[in-house]
């Protein structure tokens, strides 16, 4: 490539985005765009990896072989999603071992939602229905993200998330047809996961000053509040069909807005979790660190074997 002055490169970059074309790995990027994408993709990858833990907790105790096979497949998908995303982050110059190190040393974050415990098997169903449902709301617009490798990873992930959400809802429908105790277990899980699911969309627009830049770069396509509203509107009829109550006395249809009104979110709880004071923050990172460190000898042995084979060839 010939040397081109930076203002020309920046114009070319902006022009590509204006025409709704994708930015590809070897394109020139403004440093702010590169950093925003690495943060977002790494945080998303870490969320998928840490997200294996709450549900993985129930694999050995799934109530039937069918549920166990489904749950194993689902947790394996989460690992896969993490790897697609690390792969996308690496196209921006990030290094995978370095990203893992930043996760287990707590310097990069993952979604606050995974710092809540999974107390009963109904939590597995509610995570599929609400948590994966909220993730889908967030992720579908990301299939059109301006960064090509991220958008392509999101297309794969969204296809697979659809299985996740449906298996969760089906699990809950089965429990709702069961005993009174099982129905109560579903309602209890819904009560615990509803508000944290709404927090997944991030702070209200008024407190999200970077939205404008992210929208201009087409990294972000909708505001936090727009997506949160969409999720609430989608969930209400699903809750009704299931026969559960969403734990919000202010939740009701607003004819004028053609949307549901809902009550205030406890942002203090959200901030506490981000600070590391959630119920499972320490446990999640400790577990990830242990898995990584326990696997060190396997990584070293495989590398030594590969080096030996190479020497023979």
């Amino acid at each position: 490539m010939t040397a081109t002055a930076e203002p020309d490169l920046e114009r070319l970059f902006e022009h590509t985005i204006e025409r709704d074309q994708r930015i590809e790995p070897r394109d020139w990027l403004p440093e702010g765009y590169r950093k925003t994408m690495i943060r977002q993709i790494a945080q998303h990858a870490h969320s998928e990896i840490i997200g294996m833990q709450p549900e993985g907790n129930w694999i050995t105790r799934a109530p039937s072989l069918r549920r166990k096979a489904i749950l194993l497949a689902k947790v394996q998908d989460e690992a896969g999603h993490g790897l697609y995303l690390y792969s996308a982050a690496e196209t921006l110059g990030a290094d995978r071992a370095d990203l893992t190190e930043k996760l287990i040393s707590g310097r990069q974050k993952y979604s606050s939602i995974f710092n809540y415990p999974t107390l009963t098997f109904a939590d597995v169903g509610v995570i599929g229905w609400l948590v994966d449902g909220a993730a889908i709301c967030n992720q579908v617009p990301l299939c059109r993200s301006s960064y090509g490798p991220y958008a392509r990873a999101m297309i794969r992930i969204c296809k697979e998330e659809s299985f996740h959400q449906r298996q969760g809802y089906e699990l809950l429908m089965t429990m709702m047809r069961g005993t009174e105790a099982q129905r109560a277990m579903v309602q209890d899980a819904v009560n615990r996961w509803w508000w944290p699911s709404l927090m997944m969309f991030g702070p209200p627009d008024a407190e999200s000053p970077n939205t404008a830049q992210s929208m201009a770069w087409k990294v972000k396509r909708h505001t936090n509040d727009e997506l949160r509203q969409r999720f609430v509107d989608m969930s209400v009829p699903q809750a009704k069909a299931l026969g559960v109550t969403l734990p919000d006395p202010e939740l009701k249809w607003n004819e004028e807005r053609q949307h549901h009104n809902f009550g205030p979110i406890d942002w203090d709880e959200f901030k506490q979790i981000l600070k590391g004071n959630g119920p499972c923050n320490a446990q999640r990172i400790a577990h990830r660190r242990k898995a990584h460190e326990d696997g060190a000898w396997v990584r070293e042995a495989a590398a030594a074997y590969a080096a030996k084979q190479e020497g023979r060839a």
Partner: protein
Amino acid sequence: MTELTAEGGHGAVPLEGVPAGSSQVKHDWPLYEVFVRGKRGLNHVHVGSLHAADDEMALHNARDLYTRRNEGVSIWVVKATDITASSPDEKDPFFAPSGDKVYRHPTFYEIPDNVPHM
């Protein structure tokens, strides 16, 4: 509060004090690029990358990572360092030689409407 932006897939992304550069820690296994033939009759298409200690492990990992739902009938893995690439920049002079050769396209030639099958 910490500056945050959402739409990071599973939730809000903190922006302040989150490192996004690479501090060279010890590298792990080499990076491989993965190409999958979706079904007979189609070309192999690039689907992403993965890390593996050697070629054989790269193939196994590629199967587990990129073909969990019958997405492929054949896989190629190539060490990322073995790939030589042009710059994808479309203003790149590398692609200039084909830019002015419109006569390579069938639409360059005007054929009367009454000539059939052309």
